[in-house]
Every structure is written in C-alpha cells, then in structure tokens.
C-alpha cells in the first residue's frame, strides 16, 4: 500500500515551562492511499489540533508530517498555499461556503484558484455534482440550501481538484441525522468509487462507523485503534461504542 500521510512523532505544546499544556503528545500513525480514517476523541483531546497541524493551518512543536513523501512541517509562505491548493481538500463543520457565491461558483472557485481553464471547469463540476446529487442546488445561494446540501457542496468543492487527501473536521456536526447519513454515504462513495483518501475528525460514533479505520485519541495520545475489515457497519458501530465506553464519561458527554 502507498503511504499518503505519515505522522512521525509529532507534538504540539502550548504555554511556557511552568505551565505546559500538551495538546498533542507524541502521536505517530500512517494513512494509506484510498483509506477512510476517522479520528475520535472528546472535546479537548487534541483531535482538532491534530487536523490543524496536518492541514498546515497550525504548526507542530516537534516531529514531522509527510504527505506523499513531502515534509510539510518545513513548508513556508506560498509553498504552504500551493500545498493546500494542490494536495488537500477541506470540509468543515460549519460548511464554510462563501455566502455571496452560488453553489456552482463555490465549487468553481477552488478550480479557478488552481488556474484550471474555464472550458474544463463546467464538465468537472457537472460530473461531481451528479455524483453527489447536488445538481439541483448549483444555481442556489448557500442561504437557500439545507445543511446537508451545503455540506455536499462543500465536499464537492473539496474533492474537485483531485487532492491527495481530504480533511474533514466534524463534517456532520451541524447536520440532522438524515442529512448526516446522506453525507456519510457520499463519503463512502467518494472513498470506494473515486478512491479518495479521507481523514475525518469526529466525536460521533455513528459517523466514525462509516470509516475503514478509527483512531481514538485521549489527552493528546493515541488511546486505541479499530479496523473495520470485513465487519458490517452495525458490528463496527458496536465495537466503537465499546471503546467509547472504555474511554470514560467525557466522550459520552460529547455523544
């Protein structure tokens, strides 16, 4: 298997010597091409910090992160922007669509930032829109869409540039259960059919059960790891719930 993401003993500390907070404390793992990995943890466990470090929004204190063999902790300025533009796709909890642009234009913006010729744009957008079942909202503005539609437009925007890795930060956090399910089905489709590598941060066991692997984080450290393998989603969900119970009350609070 080809390694897309390699996290090598990273740490992220806040504060000074007398009052040191370790948001991430010596975490290492690998994500292979075509995997759908979920990272679970309670609020404050460091999962969002981890995602921020991978997405180069934040900088690590120690260790290295390799994306497709490139050490992204060494990137600076416009190299970072290029990296984000070419290698990453983002999906956020609060959608982060530009409210002044239509669905179509939001997706197109990701392409035009990468200087994709206008001729190729339309075909790509129509293609991804029909796959994610959002053709009917392309002409609408974000305020006219439902939460699920917004998130699928955001997903389309994230993957339209064929990134090596799609990072999703609590993508179902602001969705009702029906929309969550539809979005996760879309993720599944992207992962299995389009071979998109997805790294998703969530505190929701149901969302995590769609992944092929779940990494649990507690107090900045890896606590456990579950692999779905040939198990059904239901079985995998039960397994996740077991670990969550084991993790203790704080994650239950978040559920």
């Amino acid at each position, binding site marked *: 298997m080809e390694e897309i993401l390699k996290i090598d003993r990273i740490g992220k500390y806040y504060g000074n010597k007398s009052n040191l907070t370790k948001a991430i404390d010596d975490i290492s793992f690998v994500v292979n091409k075509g995997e759908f990995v979920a990272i679970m943890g309670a609020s404050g466990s460091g999962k969002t910090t981890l995602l921020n470090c991978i*997405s180069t*929004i934040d900088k690590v204190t120690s260790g290295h992160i390799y994306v497709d063999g490139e050490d992204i902790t060494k990137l600076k*300025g*416009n190299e970072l*922007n*290029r*990296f*984000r*533009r*070419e290698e*990453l796709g*983002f999906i956020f909890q609060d959608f*982060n669509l*530009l*409210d*002044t*642009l239509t669905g179509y*234009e939001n997706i*197109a*913006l*990701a*392409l*035009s*930032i*990468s*200087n994709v010729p*206008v001729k190729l*744009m339309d075909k790509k957008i129509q293609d991804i829109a029909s796959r994610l079942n959002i053709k009917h909202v392309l002409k609408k*503005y*974000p*305020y006219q869409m439902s939460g699920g539609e917004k998130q699928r437009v955001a997903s389309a*925007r994230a993957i339209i540039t064929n990134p090596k890795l799609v990072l999703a930060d609590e993508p179902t956090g602001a969705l009702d259960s029906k929309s969550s399910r539809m979005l996760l089905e879309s993720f599944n489709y992207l992962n299995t059919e389009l071979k998109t590598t997805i790294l998703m941060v969530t505190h929701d066991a149901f969302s995590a059960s769609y992944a092929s692997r779940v990494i649990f984080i507690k107090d900045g450290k890896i606590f456990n790891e579950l692999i779905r393998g040939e198990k059904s989603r239901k079985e995998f969900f039960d397994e996740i719930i077991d670990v969550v119970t084991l993790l203790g009350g704080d994650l239950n609070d978040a559920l």
Partner: protein
Amino acid sequence: MLYKLSVKNIKKSFKDYAIYFFTLILGVAIFYVFNAIESQTVLLNVTSSTHEIIDLMVNMLSGVSVFVSFILGFLIIYASRFLMKRRNKEFGIYLTLGMSKGKISKILLCETFLIGILSLFVGLVIGVLASQFMSVLVANSFEADLTRFTFVFSSSAVLKTILYFGIMYLLVMIFNTVSVGRCKLIDLIYANKKSEEVNLKNPIVCILSFILAVVMLSYAYYQVTVGAPDLIGAADIFIPIILGCVSTFIIFWSLSGLILRIVISFKKIYYKGLNSFVLRQISSKVNTMVLSMTIICLMLFVTICVFSSSLSIKNSMTYNLTELVPVDIELSKTRNISFDYASQTGYSETLREDSYRSITESLELVDFNVQDYFKDITTVYTYVSDDFSFEDTLGDAEDEIKAEYPFFIYQAPEEIMTISDYNKVARLYGNQEYTLNDNEYMIIADFESTAQMRNIALKTKPSIQVFGVTLVPKYDECQDGFVRMSSNHINTGIIIVPDSVVSEDALESEIMLANYKASSKEGRQNIEDTLLDLVNHPNSSNIALSASTKISIYEASIGLGAMVTFIGLYLGIIFLISSAAILALKELSESTDNKERYGMIRKLGADEKMINRALFKQIAIFFSVPLILAIIHSIFGLEFCKYILMTFGDEKMTESITMTAIFLIIIYGGYFLITYFCSKNIIKEK
C-alpha cells in the same frame, strides 16, 4: 465599571475606529483653521479695500461653516450607525447578562463622549498648528507682506468649534440612545449568524430603469449645456439638478444588478482567479448602499465643480485684468453741468463751477501737476443727447426686444464718443482701431447680455438720429472693446460717431487715461499714495473727480479671487473627506466578515499575492464607482459653471482641473490606500 467597559471597547475596536477617528480629527482641525482666518488677517498689513473683502470672506466662511457642520453631522451619525451595527452581538451579550438598555445607552454615551473629547482636543491642537501655515497662505493670497510671524491662536474659533461639534456629538448620543431603545434581543444575538441574502434583481427591470436613468441624465446634461441659455430663473435650474440626483440613484441601483450579470456572461473573465469572488463582494456591497453611493457620488461631483470653478474664477480674474486694466489710472469727471441740472440734482455751486474745469485744471487746484506724475496721457470725451436713449437705437426691432426683455431700462441716455477719441483709447490699450464714413456709426460693447440685445437690433440696420444727423450702422453687430477700466467685461455699449457729428454743448464727461511715471512697483505705489492723499488737501472738497487705478482694481480682484478660493477649498476638503470616510468606514466595518471569507479562500490554497490583489481590486472598484460617475457628471457640470461664470471671461480651465485632480488624488487616494492597508492588516493570517 461602565466607564472601564467603554474605554476597553474603544481600545479594542480602534482598528475599526481609527479611520473614523482620523476623519473626526481632520474635520475638527479644518473647521478650526477656516474659522480662525479672521484673527490671522487682523495682523496683515493690507489696504482698507482688501480689509473689506477679508471681512466679507470671514462672514461667508462662517456661513459656509454652518453648512459644513451639517455635512459633518451627517457623516458622524451615519458612521456611528454602522459602527453600532457591527457591535450588535456585543450588546446582545450585555442584554442576556441582564444589563438594562439604559446602561447600554450609558456605555455608548460614555464612548461617544470620550471619542468626542479626544477628537476635539487632538483636532484643535492640529488645527492650531495648521493655521500657522494657513496664515502664510492667507498673506500670500491677498498679496500682503507677512511682516512678522506671530503665533496666532483664535479663542473664538476654538469656542465655535467646540460648540458646533458639541452639538453634533449630542445629536449622536440622542440618536444612539433611541436606536438602542428600539432594538430587539433576538436580532442582536443572531445578527452575525444571518448569512447574506443575495437578491438578484430582475434583469429586465434593471435594464429598463438603467435606460430610463440614462435618458433622464442625458436630458439633464443637455439642459445644462446646450440648453443653458434657456435656464433663466432659479427654479429652472432645479429641474436638471433633481433629474441628476434621481438618475444617479437609479443608475447605482440598476448597475448593482446589471454589472454582475454582464460579467457572469463572460465566463473566461468571471471564473478567472478570484474574480467571481471579488465581483460578488462588490455587487453585494453596492446593493446594500445604493443611497450612500448616490450621496457620495453627488458630493464628489460638487467637490470637483466647486473646487475647479473656484480656482478658475481666481485664475480668470487675474487673467482678465491684464486685458481689462491696461493702464495705471483712469480719471473721469462729469463736465459742463448746466444750472438747471445742478439745481435738480443738488450739485453745489462750487462743484458746478468745477465741472467747467478740465481734469488737469482741477488737479492743479489740489497742487497735483499731471505732467509730473503721469505719462502716456490720453484725454477723451463722451457726449449725451437728451433725445437719444437706448430705445432710439433699436430701430424696427424695438418691440421685439422690449417684449423679450421687459425689465430693461430703455430710457437711459446713450453715451456717444467720436471715432478719433475712441481710436486714441484703442491705440493706448492696444485694441483694434476703426474708421467711419461721415454717415456711419458703430457700437462698442463687451457686456455679453446687452451686446446680444444690441445685435438683434443691429441686424435690422437701424438708422439713428444724433444731434440732428442721420447715421446708419457700419457693422451689423457690436464690436468688442471698452473705454473704462474695470475687473470685468461690463461695457454695455458706447455709440461711436464721426468727429463732425458731435456738438460741444453736449459734452458729458472727460476721461483721462494715463500711466504713472515710475518704473518700479514701489514708485507706482508712491504715486498711488500721493493721489490718495489728495483727499486731505484743503481744496479737495471743491473738485469732483472719480478715479479707478490699476492697483485698486487688482487688489479687489485678488481679494475676491482669494475669497472664492478659500471657500472652495473649505467645502472641497470637507466634502471629499466625508465621502471618502464613508466608503472607508463601510469597507473596514465589514472587515470581520471579510476576514472569514478571505480566510476560507486561503484554506482553499490561494496565494497571498492572489488574495492581496483581490482585496485591492475590491476596494479600488468600490472607491472608483462613485468617482467615475461623479467625473462624468462634472464634465457637464463644469460646462454649466463655465456658462454662468461667463462674466469672468475666458476660463483657463485646464489648469484648475489639473489642480483639482491633484487634490482629489491626494485626499481620496489617501483614504483609499489607508483603507487598503488597514483591510490587508485585518485579513492577514495570524
């Protein structure tokens, strides 16, 4: 506690407030500087005629100040309104914490008070410093010698500034209290959550209203340029003004919908880089501030017109002078007053006697020998005939002209001069000389409106009866020229006749034109002073002479020019900073929203260069939209200004327009750059 909160709030939002604060300070400083001019001019070493003009200017400036304070008051209220909008969430939190609306009003009161005090203080300090430079400018404009440099501090101007701005701030406080009282908690808390609704206007309505606006505007433009001569009363001028205002509003309204649609149809441009984002940003902003855009555009238009025409009035005034005041002095004297006339008009017997002396003889009575002081002496005479008045020159066109200009006085006797006398004057002035046959006459005039009336008459070739001789016109229109010196073209018409026609009995007045026998400026001034001093001679009350001198005409014109320039400068600066400040505030107050948006674009991987360029484009377009329309308005507005200022002669517009452009670029461009750098700072990644 409330005080602490207010101070912290001001400190926190200083980035947003900075440009507002800066504008307030500027406003206060300018207000002080122009109101303090009075105390500076007191020290100037100028003649009494200049002092009269300075008094007039000071009065006008204080009148303009009232108007200016309205503009600034509008700006302050407008600015505080959307600075408050930005803080809805903050107020929402206060309310949920159980703070009463009264207390929130108190916080705002406290803030306004602090900002007011601070801006007044800083503004006054800057104003006092700036007015020191102003005194140099004032002295320069009135061509006075700044004999000694003294630090001028005008306490009356300080009090006035404090009073005017105090009232403005008081209004803001009342306004804030009212709007806090009216707001609802739910709107406050969810103010930030509301995502922007994009209302695309119906394109057909947009196109139709755009066409309507263009038609209205063209009509208004037509009226003020080609149709300008037909605009007689003040009411007529209001029509194009109202049309212009309304159509400006409609143009912004329809453009905000149209431009987007047009650019979207050019896919290659629209989907290139961040263009789609930039365009949407602008169109949503223009959408929400059509009215402010209109006001800004109109203010810019007024600025351009006021500033460039005030400059060209000044230029043309001094420019006309070289043509209209060719010699140093013109002395004139009513001659040969009859006994009947004197008793009718109350001339004393001594003065009646004096009217039989020539100018030279009269001056000798007060011990002034003309030959000692004057050179190039040219003496000419004018005549009147009791039975020859304006209406007698109109011939067949009399009824037509009287119908068209009903309020003109047609019974005024016409001034008559012989052709050889006129040619003497023309030779001295360097104007064209003429010849007349024994049966011909001609009219010399340079005052546009009476020349027009006379031309209508001359077209009908009216013959006239002067001193019993019948004369026919040589030309079918008035010839340009003048005899008496003045700062403007005001010669309403002199009838030039052959030398043989006039009768010496009809002698009306004697005019003596001369240059001073001096080569230096001081020498001329000395002769002028000697002449002025003749008033103190014991015999001075026994003679009647009137004089206009180059020096006095120049002083008056320069004074008037300076006055117009100062008022233009004052209004121009205030209008410009107000409109630029509104744009800048609007842009900066949305910086938080923009920060999120630009942050998202950054996450999508846009380069910093790309983002900065997008921001630059966004602000540049935002600033230039009202400016472009204002410039188009000004092209026609200035034509109109040229027309109504015609009495001031040929304008040298290019020079004043260049000055205006420089002025615009510095102030408006300055605000633009500050806005750009502040916004860039705000959206920067931390």
